């Protein structure tokens, strides 16, 4: 429905509904996904539509139901396991890191785990230090997993299907701060490749490489930079593991400058990795040092002004890039 505005939440919901309709083996389970309608109302009314066998409320047992999701995937199902928020995922980290990520390898290729785990994450709703994590880097560290970050409405709507089609475990990071955000949904029913980063805006002067909540911020900054005569390219990494190095390299080779943006705190982050890859692959294409704008090194505080200050804002991106390009 091009031209019509749609929320990020509705995009996710449509994707889930579509998946449930498309494949009998798909079911969703998690805390409060059914009768409550989803902690963030993403799965509201799906219980009525699909019944309790396919919209399964679970007890508060992250290790238990994520592990059960792995078992169900081994048993031939295509589960979508919802971990309410990323902070609770640590209770299931053993299952994710020690089972989902390793079974294929430990079994010498015999047992793959076609599981999708969705979790809400990110900063921006004054939820304080235990509910505002940007833990993409934590999970992106683990070989055997595919880590997706949903930075746009397009991906919210179309990423789930290829994730379910993947033979291996996929973790999808969604962002609570974007749920109510309305955008036009591009009429791109064509399948999304979950192995590729995407250039969201082409430019020639600098590559802004980002993901998740950084994507719209970077696009906003790019618009402002254009007014100042700076033509910025915005690369949405989208797949944080395995990283799509080729798209990064191609962009930096074109613009000769890289500026990395993410909400996760700076140390040992996704941008740390991207920066290192740029050094390895693009050193002699660089006309300026790689620079980063990341989350502050602090547990996320509750007050709005401090919360805002803890993650990059579009105005900061604009200022930093202007400074970077201002030398003559």
């Amino acid at each position, binding site marked *: 429905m091009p031209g019509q505005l749609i929320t990020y939440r509705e995009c996710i919901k449509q994707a889930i509904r579509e998946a449930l309709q498309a494949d009998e083996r798909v079911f969703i389970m998690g805390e409060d996904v059914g009768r409550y309608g989803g902690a963030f109302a993403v799965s509201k009314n799906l219980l009525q539509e699909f019944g309790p*066998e396919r919209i399964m409320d679970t007890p508060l047992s992250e290790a*238990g139901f994520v592990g059960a999701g792995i078992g*169900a995937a081994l*048993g031939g*199902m295509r589960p979508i396991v919802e971990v309410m928020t990323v902070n609770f995922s640590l209770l299931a980290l053993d299952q994710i890191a020690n089972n989902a990520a390793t079974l294929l390898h430990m*079994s010498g290729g*015999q047992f793959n785990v076609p599981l999708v785990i969705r979790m809400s994450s990110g900063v921006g709703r004054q939820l304080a230090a235990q509910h505002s994590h940007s833990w993409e880097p934590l999970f992106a560290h683990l*070989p*055997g997993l595919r880590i997706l970050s949903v930075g746009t409405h397009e991906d919210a709507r179309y990423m789930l299907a290829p994730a379910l089609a993947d033979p291996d475990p996929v973790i999808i990071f969604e962002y609570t701060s974007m749920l109510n955000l309305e955008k036009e949904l591009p009429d791109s029913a064509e399948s999304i490749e979950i192995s590729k980063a995407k250039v969201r805006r082409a430019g020639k002067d600098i590559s802004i490489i980002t993901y998740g909540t950084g994507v719209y911020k970077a696009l906003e900054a790019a618009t402002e930079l254009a007014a100042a005569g700076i033509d910025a390219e915005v690369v949405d990494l989208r797949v944080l593991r395995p990283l799509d190095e080729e798209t990064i390299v191609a962009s930096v080779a074109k613009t000769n400058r890289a500026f990395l943006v993410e909400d996760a705190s700076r140390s040992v982050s996704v941008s740390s990795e991207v920066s290192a890859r740029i050094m390895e692959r693009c050193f002699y294409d660089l006309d300026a040092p790689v620079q980063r704008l990341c989350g502050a090194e602090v547990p996320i505080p509750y007050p709005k002004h401090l919360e805002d200050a803890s993650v990059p804002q579009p105005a900061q991106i604009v200022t930093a890039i202007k400074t970077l390009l201002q030398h003559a």
Partner: protein
Amino acid sequence: MEQQEQQSINPPLGNEQAKKLLYQMLLIRKFEEKSAEMYTQEKIRGFLHLYVGEEAVAVGVMQALRPEDNVLCTYREHGHALVRGLKPGVIMAEMYGRQEGCSRGRGGSMHLFDAKTKFYGGNAIVAGHLAMAVGMALADKKMKRDQLTCCFFGEGAMAEGAFHEAMNLAALWQVPVLFLCENNLYAMGTALRYTHAQTNLELKGAAFGIDSSTVDGMDLLAVIKAANTAVAAIRKTGKPHFLVCNTYRFRAHSMFDAELYRDKSEVEEWKKRDPIPGYFNYLLQQQILTDVDFKKIEGQVELEVKQAVDFAETCSLEPVEELTKYTYSEKQD
């Protein structure tokens, strides 16, 4: 009268069946002893956990299962794999780290996997596989497949949160899982009384509303009976069952273990209840088998174990170029 009722779950005591059970226990025993030897020669590396003393449990439970059932084990799983039907050679090759091993050498002693026999490991995070077992049973239930999932774990796992979550989910969802606790009295080196406030383990299953039972794990016939009973109930009701087998490992926890935590006399005491002579003496008494039969079986087992080592010695190492294989599935075109 009671005996009559349980006729179908009692072990059939024909000559062939008896030979097979004895053969399986001896195979585990000799295979494990050979593994220890190959470990000291540095042919096998990593952790090596031996099952010597506990043979009656794997042999007694496994005979109750069907080929289509799922089996998940702990890292002390060579015996289970052997009884489930994995060839001694491919297990030995796996421990040698060779690509002919059942997990292409990627897993080693603690991670034996085999798709053909639905053998899902070889899981080395204590209690981590219980939740997976629940999920596998859930899939079977959703897909209306008439099969169950048998999940072995030690009493150490029962102190983990994952045990409680998995038991709760299984009971809540009413899925066909046989939770099989091999209580060998020690979580590594810490005795049961130091790890569980309630040492009557069966009660923990009851707390979740799961049918639970306990059996002497050193007595093969008792294990067979208990396992057959539990499995029949699960197949009938589709509900989980919790079976505790009290057993004892004669050897150290793993190879590098000075056994500071238990008395030699305790080990000697348990060895008097060794399940292998125990079962064989029973067969002698009942005049089902003779000493000659025993020698014959023993000779066959020794040959097979030797052949397993010979096979492993001929196996090849995977080329290092394939290092990152099996991290993600190969893309299917």
